[in-house]
């Protein structure tokens, strides 16, 4: 599928081919079925960003002193305190053993991945093209696989903590006996309710982030396309692109924050029994 677009993009630059070219993944097949495909760009970008961001934090954390902190350490502690405060308000248990560090990971990693949206789409694509990559998506969070992977991981953690907190019996009991009560007549309704909740949580969790980042990328592409139409298009495209970039700073940070908050809320809810 992606190779067809490549051919088109090579030969004629039409709006649809331009956008489709930019939205094509660097997909490598690792098996027979279409499921066994790996988006190398998504994976490489996210892993590199994860290593860089968490590595930087780790580097500061390793040299962290209880005395007067350096500016570098103060900044990291600012982020730490911000995440810790959020978790403290939502989750009332031992947050330091798992949930708070998870929230920090989610926040920083998603923020870094979202921030790749600031890279100028065409220059970056050109650069990667020069390095021999026909397709290279810079923003891992505009790949549904990434957001879904994160949301599903949180979903499994949610079920794990639910069972851990209430026991397997308690969890199954809750599936059938909440929110309407333990009367056997309302068991199907309860179960249906919980089922919808369990399905909707990862979907809304992942699609919210994906939708925002994907839309942001599309708008950058549309502005880039406008810029290709002539001088006026270039000028207005640049102005609007700058405006959208500035506005996007908010979206990038906000979506990372929302994703982290939802992660914390879901994991905290799993610890509460109804």
């Amino acid at each position: 599928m992606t190779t067809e677009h490549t051919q088109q993009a090579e030969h004629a630059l039409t709006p649809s081919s331009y956008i489709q070219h930019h939205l094509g993944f660097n997909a490598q097949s690792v098996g027979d079925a279409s499921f066994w495909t790996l988006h190398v760009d998504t994976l490489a970008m996210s892993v590199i960003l994860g290593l860089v961001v968490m590595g930087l934090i780790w580097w500061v954390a390793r040299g962290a002193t209880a005395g007067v902190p350096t500016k570098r350490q103060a900044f990291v502690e600012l982020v730490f305190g911000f995440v810790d405060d959020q978790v403290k308000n939502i989750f009332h248990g031992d947050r330091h053993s798992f949930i708070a560090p998870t929230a920090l990971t989610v926040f920083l990693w998603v923020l870094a991945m979202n921030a790749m949206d600031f890279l100028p789409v065409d220059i970056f694509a050109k650069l990667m093209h020069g390095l021999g990559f026909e397709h290279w998506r810079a923003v891992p969070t505009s790949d549904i696989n990434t957001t879904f992977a994160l949301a599903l991981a949180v979903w499994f953690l949610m079920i794990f903590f639910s069972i851990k907190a209430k026991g397997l019996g308690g969890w199954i009991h809750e599936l059938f006996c909440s929110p309407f009560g333990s009367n056997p007549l309302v068991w199907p309704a309860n179960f249906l309710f919980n089922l919808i909740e369990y399905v909707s949580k990862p979907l809304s969790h992942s699609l919210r982030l994906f939708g925002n980042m994907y839309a942001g990328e599309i708008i950058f592409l549309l502005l880039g396309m406008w810029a290709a139409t002539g001088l006026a298009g270039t000028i207005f495209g640049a102005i609007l692109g700058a405006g959208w970039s500035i506005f996007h700073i908010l979206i990038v940070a906000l979506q990372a924050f929302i994703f982290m908050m939802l992660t914390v809320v879901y994991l905290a809810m799993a610890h509460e029994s109804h």
Partner: protein
Amino acid sequence: MNINFTLVAQAIAFAVLIWFTVKFVWPPLLKAIETRQKEIADGLAAAQEGRSALEVAAKKSEATLNEAKQKASEIIGQAEKRAAQIIDEAKGNAKVEGDRIIAGAKAEIDQEVNRAKEGLRTQVSALAVAGAEKILRKEIDAKAHSDMLSKLAAEL
């Protein structure tokens, strides 16, 4: 919108990152921050303690000062009393001594007067003898009439 193996790979990456953060990033930061919080709390407590100790010391010094003042005034009062006593004593002594001296002087005067009287008596008797001798001339023997004359002198 194609879900594929990337999802699994990303989930693994996510899990590894979480593990890394839980294991290596969060604990040292938490430790540093909590240690610092404790240090600050301890410092504030120590400062509070110092302040209250200072207050206690100030109160104590004030009490000591007051006590010293009281003692000093007491001592001064005692000294004044003693001085008055000494003066009274001295006055008494002086009076006694003066009386004694006056009495001595009076006695001496009396003695002098007596002695003068005695002298005068002898002289008067001598004069009387001499006068009588002049009057009577040889008729009167001084030796024979001295007894009578000394009686006369004692009557003077």
